[in-house]
Each structure stands twice: as structure tokens, then as C-alpha cells.
């Protein structure tokens, strides 16, 4: 993808007024809720330090913890599959579904499944796949894509949701959120009665016990792991934590960072499939361990990004995301985290995303595991600088050449003053050349006749 594509995509994002309004409203609300929740949490800063330590520790010893997790999960009856890449993960899941004659899959919200394009593959294999998270359900009905990793339809307002449900389900039109939820719930109940495959992601996997942890808010996740006879959990290898005792630290932060809740409405711990005497639960539990570039990231300079627990706080905090919406990023993971992850996971096609940041640091402030996202963005810009278009590359080199020669710099100041012609009020409304990029949306102060150094030489040096 070329540079102009990024600018064009983001510019189009800023012009989609209805989306921008919806995203502004929702993200500011989430920021306020997060701030309030963390302010009310005793020892919030220490918990955040601890959470960052736990995640960093796991990454430093990931092979050991993976081995322990696989041994524990297997001992408790789970079948663990290793998928080195997205294709392998899709193949493993599709084959096990087809071989067992499974027909109807219910899915809990999983960005990892978006990452590997699972739904399309299962549908090609003849399964019906139904997203059961309300937001993802609407996305699926609209053949849309999630624009936020936690709030998939943050780009839609309730009128659009109502229109979708009327069109897809033939229900009567209402904009009442409770009624809309009830309509979707009734529809999904019937699906849950008939499904035979449940597919989920995993928020945390506990190495010590082989336990999978799911954090959801609607109860659909719990239905996905209790009703169908087969449960497939798609687990990014970086999601491990060492012990059950580490879980509360992360649980205290993930929902607060995400939605401002002290705890998600449903926290589901799954250790093995249904045991004799259990009233429900799947006959088979399959854990698909997904690498898909993660071990490569782990070995490189951007390892810290794998601490991410996918809370979405950086998206909510980001003033770029707020003004362009998630789709403008054209990647599975949008926002600050996506601007780092997408180029690392998918390579050159997303190499331009790290530019989509003013490096303001709101993401770092919001991150519950203290990932220095701005630093990663700068490093990725440096890695991909050769992909920049010619104009900025040559421009920066020329600029640096001038800045190494004070006499040229002084000349440059005078040239700039000549270029920036004001309307008598000290401001230019239309700049020539590349300055038009500035004056497209703001005026430019005309440099005064005397620079500071001129003032210094003429007066200030000898003052008093």
C-alpha cells in the first residue's frame, strides 16, 4: 500500500461525519468510565506495575510456560493443536469440524479469529457460522468488519443497528436498546439450541493449571462453551500467564481499562472438557495454539507489544482513532495497538500505519500493561523509512543538511518569511508549495522580520 493510500484513507475517515460523531461519543464515554474506575481502585498504579511485570515475565520465558500449559491442559483432557500460521490454524479447525460432521458453529467474540479469517473458511467448508456477541452479530448481518477490538460496532449509531435488525430478522422497527437486545437474544437462543460447535478466543491461559479464561459481558461466551458438543478455543501463544494467582491482577485491570467495569459480567474459567457427572460442557475441548508471527516478534526488538491483553483502552484514548474510526486503518487490529501489531504480523502491506500517530502518548498512559506504544511507533517508522515516498525522504535529508550549516539555516529563515505572505494580520491563509499542506486546515503565522538570533545580536546580548 502506498503512502497516499494512508493519507487518503485517514482523510476519508475524518470526513465520515456520522462515524466520527459516534466514535467521539463512545470513546470519550469509555475514557471517562475508565478514569473513574481506576480512580476508585486502591493501589491502581501498583497493580498496573504488577500486571506489566507478569506479562513481561511470561514473554521472557514463553517456551517454558507453553510447555507447562500444554502438559496441564492435555492432562485435563483438552486436545492441543499447534498452528504455526493462520493457514494452519484455519485448516486444523476446519478439518476437525468437517470430520465430525459439525454443521452450525456459534462464536464468541474473538479478534484472533478475525486475524486468521476463520469465518470465511468455515463457511466455504459448508458450516454455518453465527457470531453471538451482539456487536459482532450486527457486523455479521451487515457483512461489515469490526472497527474496534472491544466494541465492534462503535462506528454505528442505534438507528443503524435498528435498520440492520429490521432488514435481517424482519422484526418491527425500534431504537430502544433493551428491545433491540431482546430481539437479537431471541434469535440467538434458537441458534444456541441447535449448534454443535462453539468457537472462542481466550483472554488468558493459565500455564499452572491448563485453564482457559474468557472475559465477556453478554453471557454468550458461556453459552458457546457449555451448549455445543465441541469447543474450539483459539489461543494466541502470548496470552499465557504463569499461575492462577496472577489472574486477579489482570482481571482487576482488563475490564476497568476496557469498559470501566470492576469486572466483566461473565468471567469463565475452563479446565478440560465435560467430566462424567457434569451437567453441561463440551464432549471435546480443542485448544489451537496460534503463532502466526508471534515467535518472530518475540525474538525481535518489539517484544513488549506481545504484553497486550486486548483491552482496547489505547483505541479509546487515541485522538487519531477518534477522528478516523477503526476502518481507516484497513487492518484487523486498528488504533495504536494495531499500528504496531499490523506491520509486525502482516508485514509490508501495513508498513505505513505507524505514521498514523502524533506520538502524544495517550495510549501509553491508558495501557494497563504499560506498553510504550509511541516508542514502538518511532522504531517501526525507522525500520520502514525506505518505504516512504521520495518527497519526504529527500526533504528530511535536505532539511538536515541545511540544519548542519547555521548560515544556511539563517538563509532558510529569510526564505521562509518571503514564502509566507500574510494578509496584513501576521497570518498566511494559503502557503505556497508544501506549506499548502499546513494551510489546508489552519493559518500559518508569518515569521517576524527579526528572528530571535537577530534580536540577540542587535539588542539583547548587551541589554543591561
Amino acid at each position, binding site marked *: 500500500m502506498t503512502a497516499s493510500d494512508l493519507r487518503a484513507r485517514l482523510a476519508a475517515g475524518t470526513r465520515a461525519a456520522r462515524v466520527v460523531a459516534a466514535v467521539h461519543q463512545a470513546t470519550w464515554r469509555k475514557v471517562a468510565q475508565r478514569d473513574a474506575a481506576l480512580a476508585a481502585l486502591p493501589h491502581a498504579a501498583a497493580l498496573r506495575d504488577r500486571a506489566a511485570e507478569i506479562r513481561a515475565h511470561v514473554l521472557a520465558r514463553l517456551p517454558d510456560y507453553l510447555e507447562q500449559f500444554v502438559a496441564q491442559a492435555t492432562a485435563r483432557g483438552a486436545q492441543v493443536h499447534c498452528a504455526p500460521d493462520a493457514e494452519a490454524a484455519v485448516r486444523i479447525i476446519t478439518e476437525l469440524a468437517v470430520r465430525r460432521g459439525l454443521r452450525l458453529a456459534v462464536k464468541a467474540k474473538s479478534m484472533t479469529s478475525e486475524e486468521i479469517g476463520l469465518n470465511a473458511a468455515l463457511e466455504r467448508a459448508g458450516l454455518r457460522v453465527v457470531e453471538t456477541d451482539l456487536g459482532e452479530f450486527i457486523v455479521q448481518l451487515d457483512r461489515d468488519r469490526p472497527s474496534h477490538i472491544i466494541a465492534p460496532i462503535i462506528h454505528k449509531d442505534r438507528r443503524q443497528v435498528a435498520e440492520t435488525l429490521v432488514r435481517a430478522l424482519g422484526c418491527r422497527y425500534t431504537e430502544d436498546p433493551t428491545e433491540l437486545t431482546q430481539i437479537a437474544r431471541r434469535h440467538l437462543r434458537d441458534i444456541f439450541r441447535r449448534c454443535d460447535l462453539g468457537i472462542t478466543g481466550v483472554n488468558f491461559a493459565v500455564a499452572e493449571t491448563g485453564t482457559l479464561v474468557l472475559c465477556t459481558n453478554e453471557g454468550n461466551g458461556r453459552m458457546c462453551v457449555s451448549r455445543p458438543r465441541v469447543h474450539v478455543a483459539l489461543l494466541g501463544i502470548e496470552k499465557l500467564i504463569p499461575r492462577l494467582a496472577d489472574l486477579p491482577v489482570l482481571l482487576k485491570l482488563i475490564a476497568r481499562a476496557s469498559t470501566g467495569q470492576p469486572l466483566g459480567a461473565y468471567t469463565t474459567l475452563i479446565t478440560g472438557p465435560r467430566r462424567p457427572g457434569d451437567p453441561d460442557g463440551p464432549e471435546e475441548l480443542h485448544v489451537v495454539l496460534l503463532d502466526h508471527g508471534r515467535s518472530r516478534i518475540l525474538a525481535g526488538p518489539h517484544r513488549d507489544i506481545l504484553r497486550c491483553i486486548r483491552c482496547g483502552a489505547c483505541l479509546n484514548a487515541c485522538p487519531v482513532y477518534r*477522528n478516523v474510526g477503526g476502518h481507516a486503518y484497513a487492518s484487523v487490529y486498528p488504533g495504536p495497538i494495531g499500528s504496531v501489531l499490523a506491520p509486525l504480523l502482516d508485514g509490508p502491506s501495513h508498513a505505513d500505519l505507524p505514521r498514523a*500517530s*502524533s506520538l502524544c502518548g495517550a495510549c501509553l498512559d491508558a495501557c494497563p500493561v504499560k506498553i510504550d506504544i509511541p516508542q514502538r511507533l518511532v522504531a*517501526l517508522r525507522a525500520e520502514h523509512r525506505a518505504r516512504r515516498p521520495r518527497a519526504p525522504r529527500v526533504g*528530511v535529508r535536505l532539511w538536515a543538511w541545511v540544519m548542519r550549516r547555521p548560515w544556511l539555516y539563517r538563509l532558510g529563515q529569510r526564505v521562509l518569511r518571503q514564502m509566507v505572505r500574510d494578509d496584513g494580520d501576521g497570518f498566511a491563509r494559503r502557503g505556497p508549495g508544501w506549506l499548502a499542506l*499546513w494551510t489546508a486546515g489552519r493559518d500559518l503565522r508569518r515569521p*517576524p522580520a527579526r528572528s530571535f538570533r537577530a534580536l*540577540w545580536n542587535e539588542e539583547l546580548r548587551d541589554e543591561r
Partner: protein
Amino acid sequence: MDVALFVTCLTDTFYPRVGTAVVRVLRHFGCRVHFPTGQTCCGQPAYNSGFHAEAAALLRRMTAVFAGYEHVVTPSASCATMVKRHGPALLADDPAAHAAALDLAARTQEFTRFLRDVLHVNIAAHLRLREPATYHYPCHARAEYEAADLRGWLAAAGPPAEPAHPDLCCGFGGLFAVDLPEVSTAMLGDKLDSLRAAGASLIISNEAACTLQLEGGAHRRGLPLRFQHIAEVLAESLGLLPPDGGADA
């Protein structure tokens, strides 16, 4: 006390009055001010854009230009951040240059931090505000190098006018402002809305880059907002500059 002024390229070019204010305030509090004329730019725009060889070359120059001064003071919070936090890492490959960068980092202070931490000036006690004022924190500095306590000083000087979202970025972001101008100006719009909600007519900051962006946006929109550096406010309060002397003062 001998102080070298690192005025920064943007302040030198667009806001000479800020430089004047810094010089007079520092002299007022007993400093001998030097201005090494070889100075140009610290390399921050190149660094942030990922052009690290170019940034490193400029930073090397900085270490030579400011060698030997006990204190280096700058009115720019983000340039201070560049020198203090990113400079040494940028020159890590060359032991001598790295040592020089670490040394410069230790000697460099943002203007208000220098007043507070080195000269032990109670800034709030000297501020005289003639109109409702609010503040803008340059976020590169907020996140990386806690530069100033503008909020606290203004609160001490009068009833504070709080922006709706005090920590919100102005959208400048170095080359970002012209690389992705539509996003940059959309962010600018949000920031101006937040500042207007404070009900103040004067916006005080300690960063020329943010001011260039905010002032340009306010002027385009015809908003009745004035923008000043904290050094100008302080110099006016101390009678070292005439009130609002205009761009050429």
C-alpha cells in the same frame, strides 16, 4: 550562574518574543545568559519520523555547540524531551558521542523546570494574570518528561479555567502535521473545542510547536483566543516585557 539558551528553531523563527522573555526572566533571577550562535535544531522532527541517522547528526552538533556550559535552558518542553530522553539512545553506538549526549541531557532543562528546580523560583507567586487563562500541556513532554506544572501555577494565580480534556493533543506531532494534515487538523478542532469550553481568552503553554498549531487553527476559525508561552506571561508579570507586545516585540 551561567546559562546557555537553547532557543530552538521554531521559537527562533516564529516566536522571538518568547526568546526575549526567557532571556529577561533568567537575567532577572540572576543568570548570565549566553546564546551559542551555532545552534540550529535538535533533530526532533527527523527522530520522530524515523530518520535517525539525520537526527543523530544534528544531535552530535548540539553536543558540540553546547559543550562546556553548566546549564542549557530551553523554552521548548518537547525539545528538552528530545535532548534528555531520546538523545543518548540515538548516539548509543559511539561511546564518545554517547557520553557527550548523556552529559548534555543531564545539563539541559526546560525553562520552567530550571526556574523551579535549579533557581528555586516560586513561579506561581510571580504570575499576574489580567484575563481568564487556561493552559495546554505539550503532550510529548507530559508523557515523557514531566515538564511543568502549568495547571498548579495558574490555579495559584487565580481561579483556574479547566479545559474539557486537559491532556488532549493539539494534533501537531512534528512532520505528522503535514504528512497527514486532515487528521492533524481534525485533532486540532477537538483541542480548540476543549480549550474554548474552559471559557478563557488566554492559552498558556511551554511549547512553540503546539502554539503554532493552536494559534493557526484559532486564527483560521476566527476564535478570540490568545496564545502565550509561560515565559512571556512571567516576563509581563515581572514588568520585563510590555503587555502583549505583538509578534515583533
